[in-house]
């Protein structure tokens, strides 16, 4: 027993590093009384070390802590994505002026951020329903506080109130669904649930309802229609850095969890066809349901984004639309679908973080988040505006950017899966999305600045970060096969 625990610890280094970082941040916050953001640099170091330990896990495949967590290529891929997003968000936070007025509480900020990272890393690697629920809640509770971190702002206070109410209710519904699922199968482990379902002759309706309830919780985290109502308000009210991590990392983790939950629990090991997974849980037409959710997310997200003026709110609706595109891959769920989701998430990380970063830089220097006020910025901050243009063009999915490749793969996977109507909707909504993305570009470049507005200077670190975010997007527009290969290898553990 002790041997197994010790052996498990040796595979748990990335998470242990994050936990240690969390503790060190608390202690450092108590001891070091400095104006410099020491805790931020500690967290950055912790995340980098954690990322390196994750790299050492590549290629491994095993389950640890009595089948509570696994280390497999799928988990490693998602953990790398999450740590990468975390590193960027910490870099953003170090530069954010919004957080500066709360400098005495910076320690708390980074502590909660590490807690959130830990929760998200466990979300993508746990295979036990109890562990899934706890990881889910660790992520949620940290993010509730972080959304309300700038607590003197009324927007922030309102956003966190709304977030915790939506979050608590949907995770409560998810827990009820989990309780029914566990009760019916008599197992908490995903693989054991699979066994129990395979041995049953009939699948009762209540089981389908329990999975629907679990889908409510996960849909809330992914922010997909009809569980998206919190997203615009929360994204607008939260500090930009937190909006960025919610839009990228939180969504990525929840999607990883959703994929693992569906493909491990309900995969039919006997007849592995294109619809093999969904046959195990007959009763509800799952593919149509998820396809409908994806279509609704694309339509609602893109159409509502058209009339937004706040950049954060506009990006919130755009992220709802992107959740729809990602969910399209879940509908297909064969190797192609999953690999294209992972490629999409990888590119989405860079382009969405980039858009949020430029929005944050503008908010730092001209104190506005309104797209109308962006007029003339193309001449006052040329480099940043060009970068923003590339990020937005990539979010639309126009070549030669990475966003095009991501959309191309997910669309072609859907076509080969026979989902023509879904791809049609996706294509039309992509064209619609061009309008609101390009409106930002139009405001930046097609208006002359006022005569009293000079050139805005940005410091070297911000330019470097911008470049680091920009290069992969342009690079992956041309050369993306390594990521795709890695993604394809990663999903093989599900037997696909």
């Amino acid at each position, binding site marked *: 027993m002790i041997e197994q625990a010790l052996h498990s610890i040796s595979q748990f280094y990335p998470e242990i590093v994050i936990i240690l970082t969390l503790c060190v941040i608390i202690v450092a916050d108590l001891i070091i009384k400095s104006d410099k953001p020491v805790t931020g640099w500690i967290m950055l170091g912790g995340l980098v070390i954690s990322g390196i330990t994750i790299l050492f896990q590549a290629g491994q495949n095993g389950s640890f802590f009595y089948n509570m967590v696994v280390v497999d290529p799928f988990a490693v891929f998602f953990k790398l994505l999450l740590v990468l997003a975390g590193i960027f968000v910490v870099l953003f936070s170090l530069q954010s002026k919004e957080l500066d007025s709360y400098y005495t509480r910076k320690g708390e900020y980074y502590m909660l951020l590490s807690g959130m990272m830990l929760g998200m890393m466990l979300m993508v690697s746990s295979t036990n329903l109890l562990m899934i629920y706890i990881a889910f809640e660790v992520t949620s509770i940290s993010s509730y506080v972080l959304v309300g971190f700038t607590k003197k702002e009324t927007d922030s*206070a309102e956003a966190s*109130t709304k977030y915790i*109410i939506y979050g608590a*209710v949907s995770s409560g519904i998810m827990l009820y669904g989990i309780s029914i699922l566990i009760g019916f199968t008599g197992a908490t482990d995903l693989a054991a649930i699979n066994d129990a379902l395979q041995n049953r002759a009939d699948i009762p309706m209540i089981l389908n309802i329990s999975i629907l309830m679990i889908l409510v919780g996960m849909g809330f985290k992914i922010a997909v229609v009809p569980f998206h109502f919190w997203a615009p308000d929360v994204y*607008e009210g939260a500090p930009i850095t937190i909006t960025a991590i919610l839009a990228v990392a939180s969504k990525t983790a929840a999607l990883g969890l959703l994929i693992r939950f569906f493909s491990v629990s309900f995969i039919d090991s006997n007849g592995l066809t294109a619809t093999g997974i969904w046959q195990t849980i007959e009763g509800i037409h799952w593919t149509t349901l998820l396809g409908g959710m994806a279509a609704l997310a694309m339509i609602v997200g893109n159409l509502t984004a058209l009339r937004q003026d706040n950049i954060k709110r506009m990006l919130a609706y755009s992220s709802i639309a992107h959740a729809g595109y990602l969910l399209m891959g879940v509908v297909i769920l064969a190797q192609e679908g999953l690999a294209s989701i992972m490629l999409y998430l990888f590119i989405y990380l860079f382009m969405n973080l980039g858009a949020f970063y430029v929005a944050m830089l503008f908010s730092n220097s001209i104190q506005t988040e309104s797209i109308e006020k962006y007029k003339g910025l193309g001449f006052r901050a040329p480099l940043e505006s060009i970068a923003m243009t590339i990020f937005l063009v990539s979010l639309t999915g126009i070549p030669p950017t990475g966003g095009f490749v991501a959309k191309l793969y997910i669309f072609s996977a859907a076509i080969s899966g026979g989902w023509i109507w879904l791809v049609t909707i996706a294509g039309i909504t992509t064209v619609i999305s061009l309008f609101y993305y390009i409106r930002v570009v139009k405001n930046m470049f097609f208006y002359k600045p006022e005569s009293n507005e000079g050139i805005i200077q940005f410091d070297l670190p911000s330019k470097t970060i911008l470049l680091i975010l920009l290069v992969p997007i342009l690079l992956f527009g041309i050369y993306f096969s390594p990521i795709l290969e890695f993604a394809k290898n990663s999903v093989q553990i599900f037997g696909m």
Partner: protein
Amino acid sequence: MEPSFLQWLADPGLSHFLILSAILFSLGIMAVLSKRNVIMVLMGVELILNSANINFIAFSRFTDLSLDGHMIGLFVIIVAAAEAAVALAIVLNAYKRFKTINLDDISMLKG
């Protein structure tokens, strides 16, 4: 009342607990949907979490789930306590900004 129904009531089994938890769950959802006071909504959430807990304990008593159910129940209590603590802090902060805890009045973000 029919004697068979009384007999069913007198001999509690799994179904009794599941019905109880389903009623609690529905009451929780009703509270969340109909109440406008944040504290009342949070009480509804507690009802939902506790209904799930009753399920877990009942399943572990009447099926071969054994101790797993109790374990999950304990963890859920901890999570519920943490969530309630954070929720109350957030609501207190919202009260300071808005001077109200009515959900309909805490809505300046629109669009």
